[in-house]
């Protein structure tokens, strides 16, 4: 039910009422058709039958009356006249009966008509008999008396015919009555049914109307409530209608709008806070700038004073530079003297180096001689070793010789003792030669170091000479630079004066900056107030957490 849209609901309601009305109309139509049928039957069947049967009855009555009148006539002329009338009447009746016979439908009617036809024939035969008898009598010239014949033969048949006709008429009347009653009952039923149908349709219309009313007003009330809340600035509420129709679409739209508005207002709130912060920052910055500009003004004034001092100092420097120039020339002269002394010193050092190399060659000769001594010592050592070996073998042979070798053993021992002393002496000589060789080597190394130092000293002397030469050149080159510096100093003094003037203008500009910054501070204060107002007016909106 909640899934139906309002459009569907309206269509369904109207369709239901329309269906009920259509049903009622169709039933009523059927009933009216029945009524019409009944009425047609009455009009086409029953009423002509009733009319014809009544006519037939009237014709028979007329025939009966005419026969009676015939009997009452005395003159044959009148009787002849009446015979014609009777024949005409008979033809009329016969015509009526034929017409009637063609309209017969029901069995009851057919039976009744058969009886009536039979009785009418009997009546006609009886009547014909009476008339024939009368004519026969009259032709004989006697006065006919028809009364007994009529009374005996015709009357009973007529009574029967009358009653049969009466029955037929009654039958048709009854049919007419029943048809009328049926029509009446149908009409009554139709009245009742139509009333009931109308009542049902009315009830259905009311019910549908009630449901439609509910379906429209309830969500509408909720929408109105939410919109009322939003008008008061509360965007926290959202609609959830639990249905899928135009109102849910509308509610979704309102929800989306509320979301968008809430986002927008949130952004505006944030932005206003940021704007406020930024304005505060700008205000602080502006104040700082103001202070800075004031400081600049003060500093500019100080710089102006300093520039004036620089100008004065530059003038003093010009004088000092002239003095320095004179001193530099003297320095160049002294350095020239120093350079000549250094050249002499260099020559002396060259001689010292030559002497050192001579000493080195002498030491090399000494080392060579020591090597020669070493070779001699080695030879002596080998001789001593051989001597020792010989004495050992001599001792052994002397021992083996026993008594005969005693004296020789003593000699061998003595020789070995001498060889041992020789070995010890050669060992001492070897040690001494080694000492000499190491001392010579140390002397060579020392002389090498000495000549190296002398060589380095000579290089340094040469360097110092070169440097002194450069100093002289530079000092001599300084003089024209001093003049350039002098000119620069004067230009500096002039420039300082110009700087001082420019700084005066700068100071004025700084003062103007301070004033404009004060104005911008006022403007920022106003901006701050406006931003505060914006923030207050935004703050009344309530957003969903």
């Amino acid at each position, binding site marked *: 039910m909640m899934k139906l849209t309002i459009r569907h609901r309206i269509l369904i309601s109207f369709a239901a009422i329309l269906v009920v009305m259509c049903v009622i109309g169709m039933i009523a139509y059927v009933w009216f058709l029945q009524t019409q049928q009944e009425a047609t039957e009455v009009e086409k069947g029953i009423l002509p039958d009733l009319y014809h049967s009544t006519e037939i009855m009237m014709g028979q009555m007329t025939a009966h009356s005419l026969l009676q009148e015939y009997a009452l006539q005395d003159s044959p002329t009148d009787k002849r006249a009446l015979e014609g009338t009777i024949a005409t009447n008979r033809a009329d009746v016969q015509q009526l009966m034929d017409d009637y016979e063609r309209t017969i439908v029901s069995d009851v009617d057919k039976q009744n008509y058969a009886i009536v036809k039979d009785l009418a024939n009997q009546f006609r035969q009886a009547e014909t008999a009476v008339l024939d008898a009368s004519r026969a009598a009259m032709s004989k010239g006697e006065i006919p008396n028809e009364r007994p014949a009529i009374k005996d033969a015709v009357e009973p048949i007529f009574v029967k015919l009358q009653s049969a006709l009466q029955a037929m008429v009654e039958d048709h009347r009854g049919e007419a009555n029943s048809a009328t009653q049926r029509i009446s009952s149908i009409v009554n039923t139709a009245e009742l049914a139509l009333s009931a149908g109308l009542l049902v349709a009315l009830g259905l219309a009311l019910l549908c109307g009630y449901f439609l009313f509910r379906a429209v007003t309830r969500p509408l009330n909720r929408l109105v409530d939410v919109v009322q809340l939003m008008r008061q600035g509360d965007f926290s509420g959202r609609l959830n209608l639990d249905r899928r129709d135009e109102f849910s679409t509308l509610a979704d739209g309102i929800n989306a709008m509320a979301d968008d508005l809430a986002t927008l207002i949130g952004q505006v709130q944030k932005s206003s806070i940021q704007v406020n912060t930024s304005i505060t920052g700008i205000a602080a910055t502006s104040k700082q700038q103001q202070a800075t500009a004031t400081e600049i003004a003060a500093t500019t004034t100080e710089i102006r004073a300093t520039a004036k001092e620089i100008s004065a100092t530059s003038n003093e420097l010009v004088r000092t530079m002239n003095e320095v120039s004179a001193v530099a020339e003297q320095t160049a002269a002294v350095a020239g003297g120093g350079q000549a002394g250094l050249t002499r010193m260099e020559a002396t050092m060259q001689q010292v180096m030559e002497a050192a190399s001579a000493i080195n060659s002498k030491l090399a000769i000494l080392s060579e001689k020591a090597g020669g001594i070493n070779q001699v010592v080695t030879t002596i050592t080998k001789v001593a070793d051989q001597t020792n070996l010989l004495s*050992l073998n001599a001792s*052994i042979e002397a021992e083996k010789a026993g008594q005969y070798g005693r004296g020789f053993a003593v000699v061998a*021992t003595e020789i070995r003792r001498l060889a041992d002393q020789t070995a010890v002496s050669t060992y001492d000589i070897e040690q001494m030669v080694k000492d000499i060789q190491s001392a010579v080597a140390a002397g060579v190394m020392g002389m090498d170091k000495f000549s190296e130092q002398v060589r380095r000293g000579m290089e340094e002397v040469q360097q110092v000479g070169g440097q002194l030469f450069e100093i002289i050149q530079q000092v001599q080159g300084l003089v024209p630079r001093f003049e350039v510096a002098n000119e620069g100093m004067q230009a500096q003094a002039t420039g300082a004066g110009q700087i001082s003037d420019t700084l005066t203008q700068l100071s004025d500009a700084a003062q103007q900056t301070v004033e404009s910054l004060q104005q911008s501070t006022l403007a920022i204060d106003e901006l701050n107030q406006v931003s505060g107002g914006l923030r207050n007016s935004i703050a009344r909106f309530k957003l969903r957490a």
Partner: protein
Amino acid sequence: MLFLAFKMGNDRYLLDVNQVEEVLPYIAAKELPGAPTGVAGLINYRGAPIPLIDITLLALGRPSVPVLSTRTVVTRYSAQDGGQRLLALVAERVTDTFERDPSDFAPFGLEPATPPYLGPVASDDEGLTQRVNVEALLSEEIRAALLCQIARVE
């Protein structure tokens, strides 16, 4: 009785000069591959090859230092077949002889635990000296092997 002195490490040892044939300078030996420890090889002594034993290598496990005082001592000993055999020894500090009485030497009591070539000891003013037996320097097995090799060389 005269003894030829030599040194192994710091100690002095003595050889009976009656067993010494000749003292020669240090001679480089022809090596014998696969010979037992202490056998330095063969040297040519008066035209005949004789085995050379490095006594320092045999006793201390290091070869003798090749200096002038290290010398080759040719010794003679009696073989079991009664013939005289020559055996060369390399020893350090072979520079002196000593006169000793055989009664100066005395057993020291640890002979079973020491090599068989070490003999009795004698003391003098330089400390204890010990005699060395040339016959016991080579075991029978080594001697036989050496003889075999010498025969092959010959």
